[in-house]
């Protein structure tokens, strides 16, 4: 891994974060103002003026923009207009709830999706394959919000087994995790199956068998690593979908995470909180894609990082 490549990657990462943050900065300010949320509809013009002056909203937008980035570079992400405390603290206090949901969903999505995708390919054109793919097709055909509501209807309203909303106990995790997992696992199963079918009939698989490897060994040592490349690509995109899924799941299940905070803050134009969340999301996307680039190199020596820098 040469230094030029790393510098280029880091530069691109900062460029991505800057573009995303700037875009959100402008869109938010051009499409709304927190004044009415805080002062109410009947606030006098003097009160509105004082509020704007207090939060620097009366400055031209380019001045606000430069001030925002100057503060960010000094580690100051601003204060939540609605909560009156540090925007970073407000977001970080919600982060554990979202991260715990995402981590469990990610583990389940990968393990279930990839496992059933591999199984379907190994039992290609059999009843097992057809059953797995039928279930998978049903899974990714259901919109997340419909799935969530259906789960609540069954397990909370009719059976009374699980709480419908909240995050206080482990029972509260079951339905949000299932909602976030079922659709995504189905997608991964479909992709994994296709990727596996691409490689299972390649000449190198026949060579491996001719060299005396068992079918299982050939699958583990040659098929799965080669099939993993397109699946890993999908994982990079999937992180974005995971965040969107968290927003939906958190809304359905009144889950007190970053997704709901984002919706609330956008609605009330709590600018600094939205900016922190957007930066957080773009940083995690950038880091994820960097990790995926590294995994590529490991999976396929032809795509080496050193060569990528040439």
């Amino acid at each position, binding site marked *: 891994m040469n230094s030029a490549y790393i510098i280029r990657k880091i530069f691109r990462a900062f460029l991505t974060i800057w573009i995303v943050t700037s875009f959100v900065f402008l869109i938010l300010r051009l499409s709304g103002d*927190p004044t009415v*949320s805080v002062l109410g509809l009947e606030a006098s013009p003097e009160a509105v003026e004082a509020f704007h002056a207090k939060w620097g909203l009366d400055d031209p937008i380019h001045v606000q923009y430069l001030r925002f980035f100057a503060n960010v570079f000094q580690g100051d992400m601003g204060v939540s207009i609605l909560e009156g405390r540090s925007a970073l603290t407000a977001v970080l206090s919600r982060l554990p709830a979202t991260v715990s949901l995402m981590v469990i969903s990610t583990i389940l999505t990968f393990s279930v999706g990839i496992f059933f995708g591999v199984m379907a390919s190994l039992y290609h054109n059999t009843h097992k394959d057809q059953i797995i793919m039928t279930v998978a097709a049903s899974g990714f055909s259901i919109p997340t919000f419909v799935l969530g*509501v259906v789960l609540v209807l069954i397990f909370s309203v009719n059976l009374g087994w699980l709480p419908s909303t909240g995050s206080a106990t482990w029972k509260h995790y079951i339905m949000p995790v299932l909602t976030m997992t079922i659709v995504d696992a189905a997608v991964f199963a479909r992709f994994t199956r296709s990727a596996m079918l691409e490689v299972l009939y390649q000449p190198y698989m026949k060579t491996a068998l001719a060299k005396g490897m068992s079918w299982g060994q050939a699958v583990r040592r040659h098929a799965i690593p080669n099939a993993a490349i397109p699946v890993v690509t999908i994982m990079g995109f999937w992180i974005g979908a995971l965040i969107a899924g968290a927003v939906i799941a958190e809304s*359905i299940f009144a889950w007190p995470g970053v997704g709901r*905070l984002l*919706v609330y803050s956008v609605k009330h134009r709590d600018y600094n909180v939205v900016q922190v969340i957007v930066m957080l999301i773009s940083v995690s996307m950038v880091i994820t894609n960097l990790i995926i680039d590294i995994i590529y190199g490991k999976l396929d020596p032809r795509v080496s990082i050193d060569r990528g820098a040439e």
Partner: protein
Amino acid sequence: MKKFIVLLLFIVSVGFVYANGQHEVSSKKELTVAVTENPISLDPTATLSNVSMRVMKNIHETLIGIAEDGTIVPRLAESWKQIDDRTIEFTLKKGIVSQGGFPLDADDVMVSFGPGRTQNSDDPGYEFFRQCMVDPFDSIEKIDDYTVRFTKSKVDPILLKRFTFDETSIICGDSYNTKTSWEDWSVHPVGFGPYKVDEYKPDEYMSIEKFDDYYGEKAPVDKVTYVVVPDMSPRIMGLLSGDYDIITEIMPDQFSTIENRKGYKVAGGPVNNIRQIIFDESNPVLKDSRIRLALSYAIDRELINNTIFKGLSEIPRGIQMENFGEMYIAEYNPVGFNPELSKKLLKEAGYNGEEISYRYMMDYYTGEVATAEILQQMWSDVGLNVKIELKENWSQIYLDEAAEGRGMINWSCTAKLPDPLTQMAQDYGPGGWFQNHEMWFTDEYNGLYEELSGTDTAKRRTAFAKMLDLVEDQDPPGTYLYFLPKFFGINEKVNWSPVKSHFMDFRAGHLEIAE
């Protein structure tokens, strides 16, 4: 593969069985309410909205209260004496302690109304206090440890009644003076009400606990939790699964979902708030009062009530309430549904199908979207070309920066007191929102407002009748639609009935939970 599936099923089954077996047993009486939103502050001078009015009186106590029949009742004040039309004196009850453990005295009143909180333009509670009192106080004097005298700068016909507003709640002065910051105080205020603030997380939940040393009849439950569930479907499902005892903001098309299930009911109806459409007179098409009148005559209000609210709301006689008492103009005939007259007015005005924008939001008001769509069709039937525009937030509708192209907007007018001065007169009057934002202005209305602000009841009544004529029949700044209805889903183990205001009253005598 079989092993994997069996293992997965086993884990899920064990989880469900274990989950089903876990029941938290508590001897405490707790109430959980699912709401669309919680107030951004719990200090009554720091916010004023339908959402804040929902909770404030459970936490805070005013000097005096107002019964549903309009009579004034003592709260923290044991007696009061109106010295003249500008001056009033309150004597406090003795032996009352705050939620912070400090005894109530005149200093608490002085802090509540004092500089640093409500009196100076840079005080955090100044803006909402100004809206509540309209004209400032000349002086607030501590006469003795239990007596305080207020003198307003102008004559005020409803001076006494203004002390029933949430914004005039008395806070604990000792706690306020030792607060760490306004931000912390505004979400953990210390007052004298039957419940004290327990926890507050703005977009998640807030909880209030029974205040055991409350001077009056103690709160009927140990804890009330207001959980934020913005979407209606999760609120309904949470109610039906037993997670919530009461849910707010239910639309009539969902009534059967709740009522068809044993043990649940729907309650509610119109509150003391009138939904209106407001016309922006700076819009070139709406400058002509005949077009504004045509818009008003084209509306079949009864049909909207019957269609959207199953007839459960009511149509007011203009922007006034029956509980205004002697100020209620019962004989007043407001603009009604008259499509022929509407077409005639449009013809006279030379209207040629120019587009008029109508901005609204996603059901901030009950049935807002459905109402907008029906109105558009009614206007279209008389030849009006109204473009409905769904907006994401208030600022895209109400702020001056959004004025360009604005035609009509939604509004609602709460009668915070049974007097027109606190409803239409204030909104349209000098210093009100519409004049401040240059959407409507007439000298005649402002002159009538001055008369309404006097103390001669006969003159006030005459002025109010003229104001109604002016804003309904002559130069309308807007038009009324219906009393805003509010509906709640309730678990039948909870014996609670909504009142005709935004306040959800969980005080003694208004709430019971079956064992």
